[in-house]
């Protein structure tokens, strides 16, 4: 209860601190300030907005590990993330960490089995502006996303194979399209007999696609369970194998960002991420559909 209260309070403070009035988007001001030729490179770099992003949401996930079961385990787990990123008109970079946790299950033929699921992901991304679609007001950036993540799964129905752990490291090529959809002029509207005013709003809509270029996995060996326990040398990654260039990963992301007057922002995102191993006899497949709300704290304010 206390935690819920704290979260709500943080959100309210974040949204309403400072003036409620919407001012010109900070991204716009950034563009202008970049044009100031009198500033040194260091000063310009300092002015690039930097954010701490705290996100939370739900992840509709599903996975299938053919090494232990041909059945798909699915369900909704919680998702939290923390990242730091720099964002300018010309480039952006993000370093972040996310954690998903909950339970995924399969219920087929009157047989219910459940798998505790935890995923930790570390990612780094860098994007650079392309001179593409500028005519229609779309900012296009090209770059990469480096992702490393590990899954921990515990499914007692699988007996000695109950504990599943796998790690993946991927380098993905990325392209991102951002459209400024701000309402720059206030509008008077009327609904039936009610008159209301739509104020100026600074907001962006962005869509990003990532395609796996180098995909690697560190997974169980042929027999799945290792024999270290009966060798009297128990170890964690028992009989694991590293595979590179044997997998596929795609992800996409749609962000709606509302820039606030205090230069902070709120972002609503839908993230789709899917990957599958290839080349080994027991494939692994997993997909995530994440909807999350992210609070972006502009650290230039500090």
């Amino acid at each position: 209860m206390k935690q819920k209260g704290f979260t709500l309070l943080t959100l309210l403070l974040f949204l309403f601190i400072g003036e409620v009035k919407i001012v010109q988007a900070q991204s716009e001001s950034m563009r202008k300030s970049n044009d100031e030729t009198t500033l040194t490179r260091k000063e310009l770099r300092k002015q690039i907005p930097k954010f701490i992003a705290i996100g939370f949401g739900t992840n509709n996930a599903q996975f299938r590990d053919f090494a232990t079961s041909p059945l798909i385990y699915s369900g909704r787990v919680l998702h939290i993330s923390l990242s730091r990123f720099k964002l300018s008109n010309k480039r952006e970079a993000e370093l972040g960490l996310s954690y998903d946790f909950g339970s995924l299950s399969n219920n087929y033929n009157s047989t219910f089995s459940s798998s505790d699921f935890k995923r930790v992901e570390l990612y780094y991304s860098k994007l650079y502006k392309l001179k593409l679609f500028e005519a229609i007001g779309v900012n296009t950036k090209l770059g990469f996303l480096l992702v490393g993540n590990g899954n921990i799964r515990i499914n007692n129905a699988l007996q000695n194979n109950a504990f599943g752990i796998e790690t993946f490291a991927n380098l993905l090529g990325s392209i991102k399209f951002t459209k400024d959809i701000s309402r720059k002029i206030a509008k008077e509207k009327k609904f039936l007999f009610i008159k209301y005013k739509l104020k100026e709003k600074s907001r962006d809509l962005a869509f990003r696609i990532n395609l796996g270029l180098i995909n690697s996995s560190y997974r169980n060996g042929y027999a799945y369970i290792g024999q270290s326990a009966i060798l009297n040398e128990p170890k964690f990654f028992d009989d694991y194998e590293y595979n590179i260039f044997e997998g596929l990963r795609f992800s996409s992301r749609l962000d709606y960002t509302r820039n606030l007057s205090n230069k902070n922002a709120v972002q609503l995102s839908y993230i789709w991420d899917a990957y599958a191993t290839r080349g080994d006899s027991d494939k692994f497949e997993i997909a995530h559909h994440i909807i999350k709300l992210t609070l972006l704290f502009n650290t230039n304010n500090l």
Partner: protein
Amino acid sequence: MYSITKYLMLFMVTISTVTCEKALFEEEFASTDPFVNFNYLWEECDKKYAYFSVKNIDWDAVKEEYSAKLFKGMTQDSLFNVLGGMLSELRDDHTNLLSDFNISSFGVKYLGQDNFDWRIIVDNYITQDFYRTGPFSHNFLDNGEIGYVRFPAFTGGINGENFDFVLNRYKDTKGLIIDLRENGGGAVTDVFSLLSRFISSETLVYFSRIKNGPGHEDFSEPFPVTVAAPSDKIYKNKVAVLTDRGTYSAGSFTSLATKAIPNMVLIGDTTGGGLGLPNGGQLPNGWEYRFSITQALTLDKSPDFENGVPPDIRVLIDWSDLTKDEILERAISELQ
């Protein structure tokens, strides 16, 4: 223009997630079809089961025999009996099929006669005043010259405190009896905790190898398994380990290891085997299965003890006299 762009983006997201995920993942495998489930289980065993050659099992012939029993529309119960029957051909109690209405097993302990009755031991040897320390039940035998320790299951409960107490109590005896009869196994960590108190230096006790390919003889190199002796608190006199057909899995690992330890002697009946580490998995219809995927090898690298670790001294109980445990009697005379 802004609206068009927005909707175009939403459209791209929808299309990319749906189509890419379909392309990336394999088709749905969940099925209650008897033929699909039979073939899945047969192939999993064919690729990963460890003891076809040791047990001289013609797995193709087993497929032919049991697939003939399948028919469209058969009940779940009938399918379970066919699949469970097929697994029982592996003659391995580490091999089971589990559904919400039944569990299949081979029942290796029924291959020999029953050789253990706790009541005979309490009534005629250790009395009801025996100690219970952790997983052990124990007391003195034969005028305090021999210690008897009953260890009924490898629960992972052996620790420094409880085993120290037991060994300290019998430190001045001529010999110790560890009774593993009808011990069906459990946590393999207990095997090494137990054995480490009966050796004075690091000892190679067996080898183990794991399946690493689909061929019936595709295994890793044999890995040596050693037990490190603790710095002190070891029992130095002779130890008799009692076994029967119900001594299985971790019980058989312990029995196998006694062959490499000079002051330990195995008395009773051949163990049930179970020297392969079992895996676990699910069929397309959700039922669960397991079977052995490793082989434990003797010091001369033979996997044959999977069929049971033979005792050094074979003795069976004579059930015509319920006041006497012949296996225990033989152990007492061996330790005198």
